């Protein structure tokens, strides 16, 4: 009988600092189970507890976890550096299925740490540009100090339309200012019957972005979102992430908007 609660040891291979409170940890991962962007791991440091962290990058022998220092567990994780070990369980959740977006015009809207779960999707299509017709990324951060994955953005700009906007550019006019929703109308879509959108971020940002996309003429079934909920187990037992009849950890966190819109707290 498999004991899904027992974590495995994973070594910190690399740490990338984005902001004062947001680092990406490259963690050794050699298990057979394939990892998809949008899935998550339960990351723990014994005595501080576990936290569900979504996968921000996937590579041979490693997964990347972008962690924001907001709680007891994540604070402690920040005390660990290259060579140290953490405990992981997972991957859990459904994640994004890149096949759903193939040959389509793709729009990705992400806010703040919401970039993490979609980073894998962006990376995939950045590397397999031929698999989709068009890719527009709208990313929003609070200020220049809050930008995540800055290097990635430079790379992505080479082969997709990237609109990065800040709540405030603090006088640096090389950055756009304003909410991501302001830029939805700037997205060029040639064929509304062949489009897919992914929206990930804080609840309010997701709500307004989706309504912006719908206004632009997108259909609900062409929009995907990812929910964040408290998860103690990640495996459909603890109950915390349930919304209506749906367990976000099992059935999500990625939902087609036709389903996601029905998940009311």
């Amino acid at each position, binding site marked *: 009988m498999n004991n899904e609660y027992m974590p495995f040891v994973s070594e910190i291979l690399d740490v990338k600092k984005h902001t004062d409170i947001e680092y990406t940890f490259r963690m050794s991962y050699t298990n057979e189970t394939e990892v998809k962007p949008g899935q998550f791991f339960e990351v723990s440091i014994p005595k501080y507890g576990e936290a569900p962290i979504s996968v921000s990058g996937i590579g041979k022998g490693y997964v990347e976890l972008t962690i924001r220092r907001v709680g007891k*567990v994540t604070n402690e994780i920040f005390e660990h550096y290259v060579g140290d070990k953490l*405990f992981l369980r997972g991957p859990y959740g459904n994640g994004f299925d890149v096949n759903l977006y193939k040959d389509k015009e793709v729009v990705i809207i992400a806010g703040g740490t919401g970039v993490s779960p979609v980073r894998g999707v962006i990376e995939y299509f950045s590397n397999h540009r031929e698999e989709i017709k068009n890719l527009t990324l709208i990313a929003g951060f609070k200020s220049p100090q809050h930008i995540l994955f800055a290097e990635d953005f430079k790379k992505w700009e080479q082969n997709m339309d990237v609109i990065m906007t800040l709540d405030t550019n603090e006088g640096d006019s090389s950055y756009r200012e304003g909410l991501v929703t302001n830029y939805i109308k700037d997205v060029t879509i040639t064929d509304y019957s062949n489009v897919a959108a992914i929206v990930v971020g804080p609840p309010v940002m997701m709500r307004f972005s989706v309504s912006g996309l719908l206004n632009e003429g997108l259909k609900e079934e062409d929009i995907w979102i990812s929910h964040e909920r408290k998860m103690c187990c990640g*495996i*459909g037992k603890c109950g915390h992430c349930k919304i*209506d009849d749906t367990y976000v950890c099992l059935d999500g966190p990625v939902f087609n908007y036709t389903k996601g819109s029905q998940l009311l707290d």
Partner: protein
Amino acid sequence: MGYILNQDRMQVILNELQKDYIIYAPQNKVGEGMYSDTDVVRYERIQQIMDVEFHKKSNYSFKEVLLPISQTLFYYTENEVKEAEVERKKGAIIFLRSCDLHAVKRLDEMYLKNGFEDYYYKRLRDNVKFVVMGCENSFENCFCVSMGSNIPENYDIAIEERDGLYYVDCKDDEINALFEMSDEQKEAVTIHFVQTNDITVSIPENLSIDVIKSKMWDEYSSRCINCGRCNFVCPTCTCFTMQDVFYTDNGKVGERRRVHASCMVDGYTEVAGGGSYRKTNGERMRFKVLHKVYDYKKRNGYHMCVGCGRCDDVCPEYISFSNCVNKLEGAMEEITNHE
């Protein structure tokens, strides 16, 4: 097979059973109630048949036997984890009522299915026999008939105690052999199960998630004190929260455990950074009630609530779950008329 035994002879059987099983049953704990000089009936390992409380509804359910309130999952050092030993090395025999036996199915649904099989539940769930206690009369707040849980299914023994005699209907061959070994006469025994309750509930056919828009939930925001008692006594509530503890201040050694959680209590939905969902008690009440009589069924095909009424028995604010369920029909009318 049916048998009628006095206390001494019943004890002989119980002693035999205890060679291979640990017996859990509701016990009246004198003075352990909420208020001074009040009792509470809850599950305990018992050795004497006289310690079994046959005549009161247990305030807390059998679920604590299969899902310990606080359960250690593993011990750890900085680089190693070691699985916690199983709490019970023998089989278990659990005395419970028909409603609770129906609740076992709900626990199994959650912990053996719904995604992954739960390792810790499984190992306590294996090798368990159920002794269903008859209910000659319905207790206060029971509505098992409405929930279809008044008649037990798949039990090993049914038992009733009347005037010092134990009426036993044994369906388990292994245990029947014990009765035969101690030369018990076979008798025709009928164990009673209620056919009616004073309280009935009706769950509207047209119940939908739209009911969350109803005003009916508002009153609970002021009445409910979010203590979570309704969840902790519920035989079908299965939520838990993880806890990591360390043994000394600077120690690198500790344990991870899980403890029962309540969707009524603060912190249940709190995510890293402090955000939370369902802030008002009315929203929490709605979430709980709909889980019991709406969305669980959507996922699993039958209602979660078994109608034991313990939530009503325990509520310090006299909030009635069954009465709330009975308001759903009006709430559906209210929102349908509004649209």
